[in-house]
């Protein structure tokens, strides 16, 4: 009885349109076990959704590469000035 209900829930397929809305919950590990089983079940049978999930993973990966862009946001002049302000604050305070 329980088994039948479980398999029924598993095989009641997830529409792809719903799958794409659950991807973040899945990747964040924020999905209850039953829902995750249904998600993975669909994933194993649907190429489109498999590609979709791979694309989201790549998106996260590529976004992570942007970091290098403006790493030197603070010019050396500003850096020196801030260090000077720190020094000054503490000589006064002492």
């Amino acid at each position: 009885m329980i088994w039948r209900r479980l398999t029924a829930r598993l095989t009641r397929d997830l529409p792809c349109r719903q799958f794409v809305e659950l991807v973040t919950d899945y990747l964040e590990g924020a999905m209850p076990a039953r829902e995750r089983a249904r998600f993975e079940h669909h994933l194993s049978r649907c190429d489109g959704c498999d590609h979709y999930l791979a694309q989201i993973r790549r998106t996260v990966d590529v976004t992570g590469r942007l970091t290098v862009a403006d790493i030197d946001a603070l010019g050396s002049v500003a850096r020196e000035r801030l260090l000077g302000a720190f020094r000054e604050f503490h000589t006064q305070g002492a």
Partner: protein
Amino acid sequence: MPAVTSAGADDVDDRSLVDRLRRGDEAAFAWLLDRYTGSLHRLARSYVATASVADEAVQETWLAVVTGIDRFEGRSSLKTWLHRILINIARTKGVREHRSVPFASLGSELGGDDPAVDPDRFRGLGDRHAGQWATPPVPWDEAPEARLLSRETLAAVQHAIDDLPPNQRTVITLRDLEGWPSEDVCNVLAITETNQRVLLHRARSKVRGALETHFEDTTA
């Protein structure tokens, strides 16, 4: 520099760092500057329109840290405290220059219908396979790593992020650019895990869509 090297930089003991800052240890302050200026700047950019205003916000934040470290109570991490100061300053500047008012309008970004994928990509209600892909995504070539990370691709991602509503932009910046854990993001922005996830979801979905378009255009 605090007695911690590269690997566990995130775990630098706040208390000893704060003690050193309070004692006027310049090396500790320099370490903090170099460690967080980049992320403060990127966070500021999600509130203000230009890099120079973001610079101002970052510098004002550091000055507030210089004069305010005695008031740090250790109830949050130093990192959270620091980024909260930045947000307050940047938000005020953003309002002044009539840019968005992040997190005041959180509701508008969380509510409503904001599908991850254009509904036209799926089979319609009348179809026996309603809700299934009509135009499924095609795999992105795994092989040419160079293309995936080309300057054009990175620029497309940057554009897509710039175009996001402010809260989504902030969350994806902290999570996926900075690589912060969700807990830190929730703390700094004072939002729930669930709301953070919704914002991240919408942001990632849109950036994926932009990348898909970018790849279609460049292969066409």
